[in-house]
């Protein structure tokens, strides 16, 4: 039983980190209808800046610079690439983000080289013990930070003018533009927000129990795909739920892999995708996604 609870808690905390990534992903999709394959590079950029700077300026300032840096990278992608596209096909633009991702990830991994960069976080490998359960402080921090950010974001989305503009743009870009909403700013903001969220996620992906930032860290961004889709690509709540589902599924599938050997070992990576396919079969637009209404 305690194993189950431990796995569940681990899944929830990992899931909240995935939710951060997925949220950024969803925000970009909502504002621009583009599937962002460059999310991995945003993640890596944020983590890299934090890891490189923490020795000189301390952890918290480094984290802030990292978040700002990733936001800047996101905004730059929007400004230099997304905005320049003159076609209408969002799939093509999505494929362009693959190109952006290749460029950035190649450059960052070249810089990181073969190192494992510590981020210098204050939590270390301390754990909290509640009866038979042990939870790492980093995991509690991840959960709290993700919860806080997601709540703040949802509120901003609802009550600030930026949020209203964003929702309007997602609803109908043309009408929104006619109403005086500057679509360029909305999408710039979306990319910046996604970058910042990815940087925070990068932090929690590189602290204990992971040794530090290295070239493969960016692969965690892949977890955001099933998370964002199974929640519904245009739903922020969906991103949160999707992230948690992915985290928990992964944790349980790994922890109980000896009981699931008939499916082959090493299920952790696959399980979220199976859950995603199952959900899509029942709800083609994800759990919370809006069904597309088409005008002919």
């Amino acid at each position, binding site marked *: 039983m305690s194993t189950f609870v431990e796995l569940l808690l681990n899944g929830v905390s990992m899931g909240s980190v995935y939710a951060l990534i997925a949220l950024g992903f969803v925000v970009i*999709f909502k504002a621009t209808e583009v*599937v962002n*394959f460059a999310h991995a590079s945003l993640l890596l950029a944020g983590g890299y800046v934090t890891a490189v700077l923490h020795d000189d300026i301390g952890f918290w300032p480094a984290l802030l610079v990292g978040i700002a840096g990733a936001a800047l990278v996101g905004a730059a992608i929007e400004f230099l*690439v997304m905005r*320049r*596209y*003159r*076609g209408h*096909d*969002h*799939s*093509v*633009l*999505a*494929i*362009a983000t*693959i*190109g*952006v*991702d*290749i*460029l950035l990830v*190649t*450059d960052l991994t*070249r810089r990181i080289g073969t190192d494992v960069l510590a981020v210098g976080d204050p939590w270390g490998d301390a754990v909290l013990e509640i009866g038979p359960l042990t939870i790492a402080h980093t995991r509690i921090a991840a959960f709290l930070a993700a919860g806080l950010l997601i709540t703040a974001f949802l509120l901003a989305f609802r009550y600030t003018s930026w949020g209203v503009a964003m929702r309007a743009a997602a609803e109908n870009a043309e009408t929104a533009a006619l109403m005086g909403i500057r679509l360029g700013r909305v999408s710039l903001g979306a990319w910046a927000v996604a970058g910042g969220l990815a940087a925070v996620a990068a932090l929690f992906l590189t602290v204990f129990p992971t040794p530090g930032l290295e070239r493969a860290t960016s692969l965690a961004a*892949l977890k955001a*795909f*099933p998370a*964002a*889709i199974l929640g519904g*690509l245009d739903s922020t709540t969906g991103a949160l739920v999707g992230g948690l589902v992915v985290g928990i599924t992964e944790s349980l599938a790994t922890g109980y892999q000896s009981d699931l050997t008939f499916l*082959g*070992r*090493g*299920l952790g*990576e*696959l399980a979220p*995708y*199976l859950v*995603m*396919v199952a959900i*899509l*079969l029942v709800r*083609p*637009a*994800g759990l919370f996604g809006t069904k*597309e209404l*088409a005008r*002919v």
Partner: protein
Amino acid sequence: MSDVLTKPAPEAATPRTRKLPGPRVYVWLAGFVLLLVLPFYLERFWLQAGLFAMAAAIGAIGLNLLTGATGQLSMGHAFFLAVGAYGYCAFAGDGADGLTGLGLPTWLAAVLAVGLAGVAGGVFSPIAGRLRGAYLGIATLALIFIGQHVLFNAHDLTGGFNGRDVPPFSIFGLTFDDSELLVAAVPFGTAEKLWYLGLVLLLAGGLFARGVLRGRPGRAMNAIRDHQIAAGVMGVPVARYRAAVFVLSSMYAGLAGVLLALVFQRTVPEYFGMVLSLEYLAMIVIGGLGSVSGAVVGAVFVSLLPQILTRYSDSLPLVSEAGTGGVSPGEAAKYLYGAALVAVVLFLPGGLVRLAARRPKASSAQPSGTEGNDR
């Protein structure tokens, strides 16, 4: 684009094809003859690179039918390549290596492997049929992960991490292996022999796809891409078309997989991962969405670029030889490939093939009739 408006009516296109062949045809013929003689001159490395490009081109044609012409984003192409490659091994293998093998004649195995890839596409199409746009793209990503899991875990069928040996293809008593065959004093090994097989397959695949795209189905597919509901209203059986294109595209991928397996002489599970799927998407975007020539050009570009850079890394500026620090050829290839992808999307909508079509005169920037039809 304004293609739709300027597209010639189908009746107008018919008389054109009855006229005498123009110079364009001779250029094509010359190119084809050149391809035929290459094995007599090129060393194995280049032939192999060319074969990788041919296999990629076949796969890319398939993906272009699905993603370029019909607008269905697929990230699962690598999965169907794997089905083709492993399917061929399983059908043709004789079981001597302890892995499942039916020991069928290799030509039959190749045909069946392509069919199997089609069946795999058919099995997935109920899911694919329900999903649209980005949802479909990411759902097909699941195929990659499922594929990798099966390839690594179904030892008896796939050989697990070690992969399995690919039985050499043979037809009409000719075996495509390293047993030397002297043709005009040039020794023909695997690469030389497969070169011709690859050419035949690519030509057949290309012509068939061209036929599909230029005919009624092609217009229906484009209609689905441009507006699915409008297409349905106009009487295009959308669901049936989407499923059929999915199956067809999977079969192309399966064929590419068989050819790749024959070139590799051993299937390796790592190869059929997500990176491969993304490469195929990059190919069709770089080459040109929706046309056969676009797929071929893109495939050649994406698969030859890293090979050329690695080969000539010594004489390239800014690129340092592997192991000396600085930008290695592998990294340089990735930079170029990423940059090319972004640049094509931004500055060359329509891909590299549009570059050729645009050349003649600035005022006639309109795509020529044929390309307009391909789109």
